[in-house]
Every structure is written in structure tokens, then in C-alpha cells.
């Protein structure tokens, strides 16, 4: 650190402390008697309706709905329930029920198994009644014990491989199969990092696999890992930013907002954008005046999320399905780990590459994402981009965003040139994880999706880009200027933008250096000549 930086840093620290101190004490202290009371005005453990045993989740839901009689209608309208999202701008029907990715690929013919993460009680058959109010699983989000989701998975006899690539069968007998719904019901409360994380940390089959900025390390995050969710930091939980009204949660991977021009929203709360809390000029006046000049073209995330998977949980960077299904000589499934204990090959899931502290890729992004679905034709010759983030340097709505690029190799219908789903789960010969037969597993999935399948299986390289939003570092962990402002900085491959340090036209630099260098060489030569002449003269004299 240079002396100037030191001075600036200490001034900044003082300023931040001065600003932060009153805020930390902003809540007036409660009297001891009040502090001992629960925060909520209703203690569910005292409700008559809940003083009994419940046989099933839907029986408990019936009790919940006897008071919260509008809740099911609200939940039924939510993305969490519908797993469907219609993007008004692109006209695409998306959501988990429709998209294809390069992790577990498609829900088609996997419905009831994928539905272990759906907020329903007993979606156990291919057909599911999305209008049944008693199917709303209140506990999925309102459990406060942190034990429910795991119990639910086991109760519904989820396929073990959905979560465990490797597991100890002898311990399987000890798993508690049926949650005590009465006990759980008497302890409901607000959603927490645990409840949201039970699904979102484990997207696509395991901790941190898909997102890289969402994993179990956030449960006990230090402020350096996540300034928002750390208990010693802002101590926020998911819904503080992902504000939820009438059970509709803000923030979407299908239609995110790249730039929020509305600024701070004191009364309304967060819109799941940085700007709704931090405003449009988020850096304090004491900081480098140029910082706030970045917000028009650089997403907050770009500087404040310096790396992906920073909490010690690795994230998958490549998922190659083409090698899946190999068995060893004894006909048993194979699991290979690298020296860090990460599974780099498994019969079930093929080959994998992992990363921690991964430097993101940077792209122009205006919030509009187009997804490939099972209906779209692909070009199998190149790398197929499963989702395309729109935007560019000339689009004022675009900013430069960090993304996690998840690469993969996945099956396609080679004749029809379409992506395919694969029936992974199940207990019959059509399930890939039972028989390891691509043809049957794909045929089953495509039949369920109502799409044709030629029977010709191919594999194609794919790429998925996931905007990065979480694990926001405090100021001390953000990028410094030189990380981008240099000849080979982080923005080096981002097109269409000039910034100091990137370098301009090489010809200008070359001519300029020749000019200065030529002048220097000229005066040195001239000086040498003068000295030589002088010595010759004095020699003569």
C-alpha cells in the first residue's frame, strides 16, 4: 500500500465507521421483558389447531390453511409453485418445467423426483394437481428447525443419487423417514438462509454445484465472504433483498434487472437490486470520486464479487455427461476423486471439473436472457449456448456483469438436432441411473415432454452463463482499480469499451514511443558528438 492509499484508507475507514456506527445502533434497545418475548405476535406452539399428531404434510397444511385461509391462493400464483415463468419481453415460456440445462438437463420424465425441491407435499406421481390447496408445503419455507427438507427427501424415498453421489448404505437404515409434522408445525416462522438454502444452495444435485455464489458456506459466512448475509455483517436473510409480498418473491434468473434506475426505496424496501438499498451513487464522498462514475456501465457485482465460490465449497465448471455410465470390471459403479476429494468422475454423472475462487467471465448484459428449449433446433457443430445474455456496449441498458460459465457435454437428438431430456431418476430400465441406457432414458423423457426423438444419440458441447449476485465482499475485498485498468485486466476480452489502462491504437503508441525515443537517441548522439569534438580540440591544443 502506498502512503497515499494508507491515508485514504484510514480516512475512508473513519468515515465508514462514523456512518456505520449510528446505523448499527439504529434499533432502540428493548427492555429485558420485551426482549424475552418472541418477535412475532403469534406463538404457533400455543395454537389449539396444532396440538396434535399429523400423519402427513398435507394434513398439517390443512391446519395451517384453517387460519391462513388466503395463503394457498397466493402460493399457487408463485414461481416457487408453478415452476413456470412467461417472459413477456421474449415471449418464452420458461421455468423449471420448460428449460434445459447442462446439469440435470430436464425435468421431463423426472417430475416427481425433481419435485423433492418443489414446495408441495406429495408430488410423487407423474401427474400432479397444481390446484390442490392442501398440497402447498408450508414447512418447505417456514420450518425453523433446519431439519425438515432433509427429512422430507428421505420420507418421500427420493432416489439416493439425487443428492448423494456416494453414500454409506449401512447408515441408510438409521435415517428418520417420517418428520414429526406436529412438532414442526408448532415451530414455524419466517424463511431463513437454511430454508431457502435447502433448495437453492443445492441446485442441480449438490452443495454449490450450479451457482457458485450460493452454497452452505453462507450459513456461517464471515463478513469478508458475504457482507450481507454474515451475522457479523449486515445479518440479512434472503427475503430482506428478495422482498416477498403475497408469497411472490422478487428477483428472477429469467428476467433479472441489469440496471435499476429508480435508486433508494426507503418505504417500499428492496427490489432485489443493489440500487434499491445503496442508491445510484453508492460510494461515499470520501472515496475516489471516480468510483461512482462506473455505475452507468459496470454492474455493482463486477467489482464487489471478486470471485465465485469463495467460501470453501467448490462449484462445478464442467459437467461432461458423455463419459457417464462406465462400469468397472466387476460391473460396479465407479467414483474417482481428485487430490482435494472432489468427484471428478462418477458412473452416474460422468466427468466433472470444479473450481474455488473462480474469476468470473465478464459480459455485457441488459437483463434479457433467451433460453434454448426442447423445441429449438441447435447447431451441433459448435458449442451450443443454452442461454444467451443479451446486451452490448451500444445498449444503454447494458452493464458489464460477472457470470459463471458452466460448460458441459450433453446428449442431443443427432438427427433432429435438438436438445433432449434424460430420465435420470426412477426404478425402471428407462431410468439412466438404473440401466445406463441413453436411448431408453432419452426416449422416456422426450415422450413425457411430447417431443419427437429419432433414436440417434449424439453429444454436444454446451455452455450456460449464470449471472453472479451473491457472496458480495465488503469494500476491503472488492476489486482494485488495477485489476481492470491494465493491459491484460479482467475486462480485456469485453468488447466495445475503452477505459484507461486498456491501451488505445497500437500505432499511436508505437509512433509516440518512436518520437520520444528518437528525441532521446538524437540528443544523446548529439551530446556524444559534442564531447568527442571537444576532446579532439583539446587534444590538438
Amino acid at each position, binding site marked *: 500500500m502506498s502512503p497515499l492509499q494508507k491515508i485514504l484508507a484510514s480516512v475512508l475507514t473513519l468515515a465508514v465507521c462514523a456512518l456505520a456506527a449510528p446505523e448499527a445502533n439504529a434499533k432502540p434497545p428493548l427492555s429485558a421483558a420485551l426482549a424475552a418475548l418472541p418477535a412475532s405476535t403469534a406463538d404457533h406452539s400455543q395454537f389449539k389447531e396444532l396440538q396434535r399428531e399429523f400423519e402427513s404434510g398435507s394434513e398439517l397444511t390443512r391446519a395451517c390453511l384453517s387460519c391462513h385461509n388466503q395463503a394457498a391462493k397466493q402460493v399457487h400464483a408463485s414461481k416457487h409453485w408453478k415452476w413456470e415463468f412467461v417472459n413477456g419481453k421474449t415471449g418464452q415460456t420458461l421455468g423449471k418445467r420448460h428449460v434445459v440445462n447442462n446439469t440435470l438437463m430436464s425435468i421431463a420424465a423426472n417430475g416427481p423426483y425433481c419435485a423433492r425441491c418443489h414446495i408441495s407435499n406429495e408430488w410423487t406421481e407423474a401427474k400432479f394437481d397444481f390446484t390442490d390447496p392442501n398440497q402447498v408445503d408450508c414447512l418447505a419455507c417456514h420450518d425453523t428447525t433446519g431439519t425438515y427438507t432433509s427429512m422430507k427427501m428421505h420420507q418421500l424415498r427420493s432416489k439416493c443419487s439425487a443428492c448423494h453421489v456416494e453414500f454409506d448404505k449401512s447408515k441408510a437404515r438409521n435415517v428418520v423417514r417420517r418428520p414429526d409434522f406436529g412438532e414442526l408445525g408448532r415451530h414455524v416462522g419466517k424463511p431463513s438462509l437454511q430454508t431457502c438454502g435447502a433448495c437453492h444452495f443445492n441446485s442441480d444435485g449438490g452443495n454449490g454445484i450450479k451457482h457458485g455464489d450460493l452454497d452452505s458456506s453462507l450459513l456461517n459466512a464471515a463478513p469478508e465472504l458475504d457482507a450481507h448475509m454474515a451475522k457479523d455483517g449486515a445479518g440479512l436473510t434472503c427475503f430482506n433483498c428478495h422482498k416477498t409480498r403475497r408469497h411472490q418473491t422478487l428477483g428472477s434468473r429469467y428476467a433479472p434487472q441489469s440496471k435499476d434506475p429508480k435508486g433508494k426505496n426507503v418505504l417500499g424496501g428492496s427490489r432485489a437490486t443493489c440500487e434499491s438499498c445503496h442508491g445510484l451513487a453508492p460510494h461515499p464522498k470520501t472515496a475516489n470520486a471516480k468510483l461512482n462514475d462506473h455505475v452507468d456501465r459496470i454492474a455493482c457485482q463486477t467489482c464487489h464479487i471478486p470471485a465465485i465460490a469463495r467460501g470453501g465449497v467448490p462449484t462445478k465448471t464442467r459437467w461432461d455427461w458423455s463419459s457417464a455410465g462406465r462400469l468397472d470390471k466387476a460391473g460396479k459403479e465407479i467414483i474417482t476423486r481428485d487430490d482435494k476429494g472432489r468427484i471428478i468422475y462418477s458412473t452416474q454423472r460422468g466427468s466433472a471439473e470444479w473450481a474455488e475462487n473462480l474469476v468470473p467471465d465478464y459480459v455485457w448484459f441488459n437483463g434479457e436472457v433467451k433460453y434454448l428449449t426442447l423445441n429449438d433446433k441447435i447447431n451441433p457443430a459448435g458449442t451450443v449456448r443454452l442461454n444467451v445474455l443479451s446486451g452490448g456496449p451500444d445498449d444503454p441498458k447494458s452493464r458489464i456483469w460477472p457470470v459463471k460459465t458452466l460448460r458441459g457435454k450433453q446428449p442431443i437428438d443427432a438427427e433432429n438436432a435438438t436438445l433432449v431430456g434424460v430420465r435420470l431418476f426412477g426404478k425402471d430400465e428407462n431410468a439412466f441411473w438404473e440401466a445406463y441406457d441413453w436411448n431408453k432414458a432419452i426416449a422416456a423423457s422426450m415422450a413425457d415432454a411430447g417431443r419427437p426423438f429419432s433414436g440417434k444419440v449424439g453429444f454436444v458441447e454446451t455452455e450456460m452463463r449464470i449471472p453472479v449476485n451473491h457472496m458480495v465482499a465488503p469494500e476491503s475485498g472488492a476489486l482494485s482499480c*488495477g485489476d481492470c*485498468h491494465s493491459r491484460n485486466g479482467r475486462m480485456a476480452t469485453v468488447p466495445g469499451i475503452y477505459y*484507461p489502462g486498456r491501451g488505445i491504437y497500437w500505432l499511436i503508441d508505437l509512433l509516440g514511443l518512436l518520437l520520444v525515443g528518437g528525441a532521446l537517441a538524437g540528443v544523446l548522439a548529439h551530446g556524444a558528438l559534442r564531447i568527442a569534438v571537444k576532446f579532439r580540440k583539446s587534444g590538438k591544443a
Partner: protein
Amino acid sequence: MTQRVYLFARFERFWHWSQAGLIIFMAVTGFEIHGFYTLLGFEPAQELHTIAAWALISLWVFAIFWHATTGEWKQYIPSFDRLFAIMRYYSVDILTGAPHPYKKSRLHKHNPLQRIVYLSLWVLINPALWISGALYYYYNDWGPWGLAPYLKLEYVATAHVVAAFLITTFLVIHVYLITTGHTLFAYIKAMITGWADLDEDSAQES
């Protein structure tokens, strides 16, 4: 015979040396910002370059005022008198020990070559530097100022860098020419003390 003449007033010397220091400092930090090398780190370089820019602009405001009020601006009125003889002197004749073709005086303390070069610094390179520099710094205000449709940051940056190359070239040659006085240190001594040894006959002109 030579005579000691008070050629450079106190303010003029102060202006010259602080300008020299600032220009050298801005070249060092500026070319770091441009990405040629890493010395202080980008952020300190950028911050110090900006502070130095404001200092230099303030200095120029004072210098322009001084030149205007003292009439010293006349020293930069261009003249082509013996211009080629002077150029020949610096390139060839200086080696043979021939006398300088131009006699300096209090009223004409710069030879015609100096006048042309210094004047182009004042009216071309310095304005190019600070106009392009100000536009560069206030990039985010182009919209409100109504300039956004006419400018592109990389063009402004190019203009700034080209001007920086020119002033650095000037600096190199200027520093070398300091050594071409009666003695090796004659010119620098004059610029430090203000007193110069001029030829008797020309000194009388003043």
C-alpha cells in the same frame, strides 16, 4: 565581454520549476495510467495525476495573469529572423564552436526557435492536454453537457496521449538544450538565480 543581467523574475522561475516538476510527475503517472508500466499502482497514479492536473491548471492561470500584466507575453511573439541559422547552429555549428547567431537581451530573451516552440506549447500542446484531460475526467458529464453525441472516450484518450507524447518529446530536447550555453551549466544557473551572463553589446540594448 559579458554582463550579468537579471533575466528571469522570481515568479517566472517559480512558475518554470513547479511547472517542470508537475509535467514530469504527470508524464510518469500518466503513462502508468495509460498502461505502459506499473509503478505506484493504478489508483494512486490516477488520484495523484488528477491532483497534479488541478495544480498545473492553477499555475497556468497565475502564469497567464503574470504574462499579461507584465507584458512578458511579448516574448513569445513569433519571429523567423535567422531561424534557419539557429537551427543550423544547434545541429552543426555548435560542434565547431561557432558563435550563437542570435544575441539575447532582456527584451528578447528567447531566440526565434524558442519563441516558436514555447508559443506552440502555450497555444497548442498545453490546451490540447488540458481540454482533452478535462473531457477525459468529466466523461460521465458528457450527457448533461450535451457532448455525448460528438465524442468517444477513446478519441479523447488518443488526443490526450498524443499531446502527452509531444510534451515528453519537448521535455527531452529541452533538457538537453540546457547544456548548450556558454558553459554546461550556464543556462540552468540562469533559470535558478535569474541572472544570466549576456554579451555586452546585446545587454546594452536593454
